[in-house]
């Protein structure tokens, strides 16, 4: 395949940045999107040009490190991570535009690399069950109906990639935050702290500068792990009931 790439290049956070066009030939349909970028980078390096910096690690769709806004969609045309997107999804002669995630809470570090530490800080604000190592009951002492466990699991599969934020016109992080709140609120282990958790995580989310939710559902439609929109509804319920009744915060 022959391709034209329009790639966002930005030297550092203070640089203005802009698109640069590259021509690529001899791309195999079996390559993953990131392997295609590897080819580009080998070419650039051989020519003595700075390779395109992008985040990636596991390349099997689970670490959440790869990002990329491809032709106006986070992770490209399919509901998957960029590392699991293959070139067979494109056609010979295509022009592909590649941008970083765009959100003020995800500042650009270099080229396509952004800083998502705001997600870590949201988890630090309450995305856990407060138990120390040791001194916990036997695992089977807390029976959990399979349906509930499965629903909690669905929310727990979030990989923290940030596609939901990139997809949202308001750069809202509601899907990410609600997934963690739902996972723990559904389980007996997490119920104890659910009110405090909802209030603290929402407060941190706002502090980081993520936008509000207008229920368009773009986040869920683009989520590579298919986190459901119903989590946001559950989060809102948890948050409102917490603010009506809580003694905390």
């Amino acid at each position, binding site marked *: 395949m022959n391709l034209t790439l329009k790639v966002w290049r930005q030297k550092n956070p203070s640089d203005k940045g802009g698109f640069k066009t590259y021509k690529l030939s001899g791309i*195999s349909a079996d390559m993953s999107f*990131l392997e295609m970028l590897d080819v580009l980078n080998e070419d650039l390096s051989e020519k003595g040009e700075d390779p395109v910096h992008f985040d990636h690690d596991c390349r*099997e769709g689970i670490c959440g490190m790869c990002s990329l806004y491809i032709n106006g969609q986070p992770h490209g045309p399919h509901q998957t991570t960029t590392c*699991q997107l293959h070139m067979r999804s494109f056609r010979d002669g295509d022009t592909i535009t590649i941008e970083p995630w765009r959100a003020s809470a995800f500042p650009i570090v270099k080229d396509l690399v952004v800083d998502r530490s705001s997600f870590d800080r949201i988890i*630090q604000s309450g*995305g856990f069950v407060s*138990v120390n*190592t040791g001194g916990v009951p036997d695992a089977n002492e807390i029976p959990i109906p*399979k349906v509930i466990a499965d629903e909690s699991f669905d929310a727990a599969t979030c990989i923290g990639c940030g596609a939901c934020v990139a997809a949202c016109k308001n750069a809202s992080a509601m899907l990410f935050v609600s997934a963690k709140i739902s996972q723990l609120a559904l389980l007996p*282990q997490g119920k104890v702290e659910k009110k405090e958790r909802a209030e603290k995580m929402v407060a941190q989310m706002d502090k980081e500068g993520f936008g509000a939710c207008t229920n368009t559902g773009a986040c869920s439609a683009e989520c590579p792990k298919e986190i459901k929109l119903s989590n946001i509804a559950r989060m809102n319920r948890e948050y409102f009931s917490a603010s009506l009744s809580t003694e905390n915060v």
Partner: protein
Amino acid sequence: MKLDSKIPSGPLAEKWTRHKFNVKLVNPANKRKYEIIVVGTGLAGASAAASLAELGYNVKAFCFQDSPRRAHSIAAQGGINAAKNYQNDGDSVFRLFYDTIKGGDYRSREGNVYRLAEVSVNIIDQCVAQGVPFAREYGGLLANRSFGGAQVSRTFYARGQTGQQLLLGAYSALSRQVANGKVKLFPRTEMMDVVVVDGKARGIVTRNLITGAIESHSAHAVLLCTGGYGNVFFLSTNAMGSNVTAAWRAHKKGAFFSNPCYTQIHPTCIPVSGDHQSKLTLMSESLRNDGRVWVPKTKEMAEKLRKKEIAPKDIKEEDRDYYLETKYPSFGNLVPRDVASRNAKYVCDEGRGVNETGEAVFLDFRDAIKRDGEDAVKGKYGNLFDMYEKITGENPYQTPMMIYPAVHYTMGGLWVDYNLMTTVPGLYALGEANFSDHGANRLGASALMQGLADGYFVAPYTVGDYLASLPYEKIPEDHAEFKKSEEEVKARVQKLLSVNGTKTVDHFHKKLGKIMWNHCGMARNAAGLTKAKEMIQSLKEEFWSNVKVLGTGEELNLSLEKAHRVADFLELGELMVDDALHRNESCGGHFRDEYQTPEGEALRDDENFAYVAAWEYKGEGKEEALHKEDLVFENVKLTQRSYK
């Protein structure tokens, strides 16, 4: 130097309990006076950092990724073993211990392995309490499955994403301690050196991957939880960033490196599709519970498959060779990883491989779908099937999967004693970074168990024992040893940037990977290893005279990061070859062509090789010195592994 494993005396089942009583304790009010560095935030690192912080120590946690949640433990699919015996099928701590020792082909320590089996039950309790959503039965209790090499159902799992869920559990515990101010996080920071003062590990030197700043961090103890070195093969199931650098720099500062040649080749990976390939994707071994492995009985038929003249479904039942079921009637498709991998290689070497490259066998779910229905199969393996289809473009519900072995895990690592301390006092290695529990071969669902055992339940006791006799004063970060180390790191950065050659870092990495895979991979022999050593040495020379690293040291520079890692892989590769060449026997993941039984199974030499090889770095360009720790077996009888 005499290696002392410090295995406590007394009966096997009481060793850990006695040891826990005998270790020195640090008064709760004094714990805050100590600082501990944890490098790596995977299962071992995150669990250790969280647990130590909960106890009251001050912890600094480092990872090269943008967040601790990205560590490669996240990619483990299948499950985690624990001797809970919830299924009433005869499991016990002793049986898990026995299976693990036997699975490791009798090349691990009894004491360590027993402790691992013993604390396995606590891990499950801990993870459930954190909110890890393990699979459950309709009655609400935890579900189990059996897993490669085991005849009991002791594996706990979370669909095909067990590693993810366990890591997120540990990450949440770590995050809680960050919020409490007990852990300070340093993401996008790579460890470049261990600083040793008066014979003790007293800190590390790091490179900030965003700014390039070289910085010193002083502490009372350093824990390396930096994973394995499978990426020495270039193609492996490891993440792109997984590397040996931290462990290797520690090795050069005096930590012995053990059994580097013990590498695990995983039997169920998606086959290589071309030269562009950057990594290999594992399909969880749990698939072997229901999938049947086969190739055509004849070469001719395999050739037709390769040319796509016929489809797998055109091959009649009597023309299929379910070679694992035939050769190993009692274990069948569930034989341990090394056995399954080697047999795949044999049938492909015979010309019966089924894809274009001739390096693939079938893993077929036709019978499972017929027996249990598509929904049941989907429930168990849905996400794995989806992943397979995304990568290959083929639907495994309709046509059999194709698989081939790939490098997956490294049993070797830094030598540690029973306390997980390396040969450098105050320097610990946890999880895959150490060598201790898996012997020559790791059983499925044991890596998650070991990482969490070390981090949650072992290090918090043993590190305290060491700290208790250490003064509170920290070594200042402007101490001569820190400065010296910083200068060395800076000089190395400059050296890499100034070569200004013509070949990219990846060029060298790929070349090294090919040498390792061809000569130090699934099967090795003396001639090949001798040749490999020469090839690596000349590749290393070429690297330092002709590598091209662009950009500067003061910015985010991916090729510079990679160059550091590949330079260390080049040195490690040579040691792996030395280790494989000196071990004149076959055991577990180390298979020497010269040493096999008439049936083609690994032939151990317990008389001469029942020891841990521990290599000591002797300086640039010098041969490393071999030390031996004899393995003593008091509770198991060494037998020839048989899965017939």
